[in-house]
């Protein structure tokens, strides 16, 4: 059973697009995968490199994930994010991570996901650089 999410978000929908990608029912261009996470190219890239990383579990947001997942899964997920950046060749050039939480912050798909954005010079975290509106 999906956990009851905190912070007034809708319950986890097992038919959201990222759940379907995880089950192999929807396509994606895979960048990295391990037991904790799957990373794939964003179909609406906001930068030359724009990848989404999702945990393998039913979590609507970072708050839900942090509150409900085990230490091992949380640590494994963030290690997978770092490994994805390495696979993408971004360790030297640098990158930005973004996660939107809740409809007020333009979260569109309610399966927790982290955006990895790179491939060009980035400025402050909310500056003029690419800001994903979470198109999925």
């Amino acid at each position, binding site marked *: 059973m999906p956990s009851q999410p905190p912070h007034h978000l809708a319950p986890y929908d097992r038919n959201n697009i990222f759940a379907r990608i995880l089950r192999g029912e929807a396509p994606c261009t895979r960048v990295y995968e391990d037991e904790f996470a799957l990373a794939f190219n964003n179909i609406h890239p906001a930068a030359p490199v724009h990848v989404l990383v999702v945990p393998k579990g039913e979590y609507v947001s970072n708050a839900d994930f942090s509150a409900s997942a085990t230490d091992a899964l949380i640590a494994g997920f963030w290690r997978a994010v770092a490994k994805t950046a390495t696979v993408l060749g971004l360790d030297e*050039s640098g990158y930005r991570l973004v996660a939107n939480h809740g409809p007020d912050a333009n979260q569109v798909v309610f399966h927790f996901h982290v955006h990895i954005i790179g491939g060009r010079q980035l400025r402050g*975290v909310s500056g003029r650089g690419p800001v994903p509106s979470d198109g999925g």
Partner: protein
Amino acid sequence: MTPAYDRNNIFAKILRGEAPCTKVYEDEFALAFRDIHPKAKVHVLAIPKGEYVSLADFAQSAPPDMVAGFWRAVTRVAERLGVADGYRIGSNVGPGGGQIVFHFHVHILSGPRQ
């Protein structure tokens, strides 16, 4: 290329109490305080209590209970700030990613940009 950890970076000084901050949350894993140059109505930085230069360093080097504790702290910060229904988390990694202070930190942003 991300530099080595510098124990005199400004966030290390804040953690040691040698530099001021406007604290909004603290627990055994993390400290959160207001960004002195806010880019949104709410703009808070959360940092782990340990010597990690970036998110990549933290994710690869910190023990799992610290990684989990840190992210749980980020959630509590959002709750304390009253923005749990809508906020953005951001972290820049490396000079080319826009990182300026090389102590891992997460930006918590909410409300209109300033």
